[in-house]
């Protein structure tokens, strides 16, 4: 497969309100080409919103997000569709199309958005299903697959579009514990290809091993932004310290 092209992302004074709720309060953040950034923080801290703004599943209230130096705040219609087609998004609930087979889940956008001919789309789908270890399930429907298998197909679907950015919104949170490993293994392979990756996750093992940086958010602001060693060994913000303690030993902190 050809060398991965990856993109740079720059948040400029980004704010997001849902009605009166101020979810993101002035985010400034730059993610370099090929960086793997893990975003963590308590629920309701705005981390999902942070990545959903990049491909505009949610609209910006204020500020701008630059991709490779180009503003995206004003994009709509065709320009917005092109932006989205170049950004892979993996959902917590997988969101595979239940009426299509694993293979068809991947070929649909290749044919209808990218415009590939069917044999090409099928070939690429099969390569990717092979890559995520799902080639024997290409004719299965999502309802016939386990959560981990569905998420692997969803990841294959996202990378089939040859995106320059991959966004993961808690990709393992809806999975049974024994299925988390297979999904993380696929993500590890992808992280090594040099694609720009933003991963909202609580999987600190993944963060420690693969992240270039860890961003900790709470109440809509970024409180920590550091490489993993620094983040884990020299956690500066008290709320980040508390969050990590809670993650490592939930019972202990609950009884504190």
């Amino acid at each position, binding site marked *: 497969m050809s060398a991965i092209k990856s993109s740079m992302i720059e948040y400029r004074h980004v704010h997001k309100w849902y009605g009166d709720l101020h979810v993101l309060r002035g985010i400034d953040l730059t993610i370099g080409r090929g960086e793997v950034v893990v975003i963590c923080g308590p629920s309701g801290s705005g981390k999902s919103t942070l990545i959903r703004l990049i*491909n505009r*599943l949610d609209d910006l209230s204020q500020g701008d997000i630059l991709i490779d130096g180009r503003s995206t705040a004003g994009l709509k219609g065709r320009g917005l*569709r*092109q*932006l*989205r*087609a*170049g*950004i*892979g*998004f993996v*959902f917590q*609930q997988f*969101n*595979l*199309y*239940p*009426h299509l*087979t694993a*293979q*068809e889940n991947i*070929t*649909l*956008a290749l*044919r*209808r*958005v990218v415009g590939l001919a*069917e044999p090409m789309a*099928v070939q690429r789908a*099969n390569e990717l299903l092979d890559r995520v270890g799902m080639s024997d399930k*290409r*004719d299965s*429907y*999502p*309802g*016939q697959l386990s959560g981990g298998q569905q998420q692997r197909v969803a990841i294959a*679907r996202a990378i089939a*579009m040859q995106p320059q950015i991959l966004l993961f919104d808690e990709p393992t949170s809806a999975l049974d514990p024994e299925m988390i490993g297979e999904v993380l293994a696929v993500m590890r392979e992808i992280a090594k290809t040099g694609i720009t990756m933003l991963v909202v996750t609580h999987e600190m093992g993944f963060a420690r091993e693969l992240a270039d940086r860890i961003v900790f958010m709470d109440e809509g602001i970024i409180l920590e932004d550091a490489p993993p060693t620094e983040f884990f060994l020299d956690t500066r913000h008290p709320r980040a310290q508390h969050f990590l303690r809670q993650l490592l030993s939930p019972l202990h902190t609950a009884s504190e």
Partner: protein
Amino acid sequence: MGISFDWAGVLTGEPAQWLLTGILTTAYVTLAASLLASILAVLVLGLRISPARAGRWPAMTIIELFRNTPLIVQLMFWYFAAFGLLPLSWRLWIGNDHAWARLPGGIGIISPEFLAATWGLGLFSAVFIAEEIRAGLLAVPVGQREAALSQGFGPWAILRHVLLPQALRNAWQPVVGQYLNLMKLSSLATAIGLGEITYQVRQIESYNSHALEAFAVGTALYLIFGLVLAQVLSRFEPSQIAKRKPGTVKAGTVALAMVDAAKGIDCSQGADRGA
């Protein structure tokens, strides 16, 4: 004193001829109104879910108006009131004998009765079908739309390839129910003089007073119609996701083909594309 039946008074001679005409007329009007209802349902649904207020409001008005008034009143309105508003030359033309527009059984489809019944039944059913499919659309999880958006699909492609196939599966049973209702409701067209089964049954009753036999036969005929129609429609049913095997006809293809045909849009992707 027991009840005695005289089936020959219904199933032979002129009454038998009338019944045959009634059966064919019910079949033709059901078929014509079903086709019309499918086309109108697509139009009404398209307007109802369009992003433009200018589309939604007329659709909502039509839906509420025709869903919440009695069909028999609607049929009478079209036949007695609206028909009279047509230009005289049209009315005369429709009233003429059209040899070319006679279907097997000698039933003319260009007549005020047949046209008003087809139009009335078609429109009445269309608003119900449109609302059933819309409910099916609303039942598709929001994540499906987000997944398609994130892949760069436009609004029409999302509807066509992601939402509608799932909505049609969700709405299948209620929609089939509407087509079955349409067949049964065609009996109301007797009120505007359409010679369908109920009309003929009443004619037999007033001809030889065989009310019990005539209505028994009429009831049996509707029952057969209903069972056959349900059987035919179940052939087109999108199979359930978990039970589907690769290589079967793609879910919703037939219904979508109807949708597309009505909109004049290419649907060449209907064929299965197993590897």
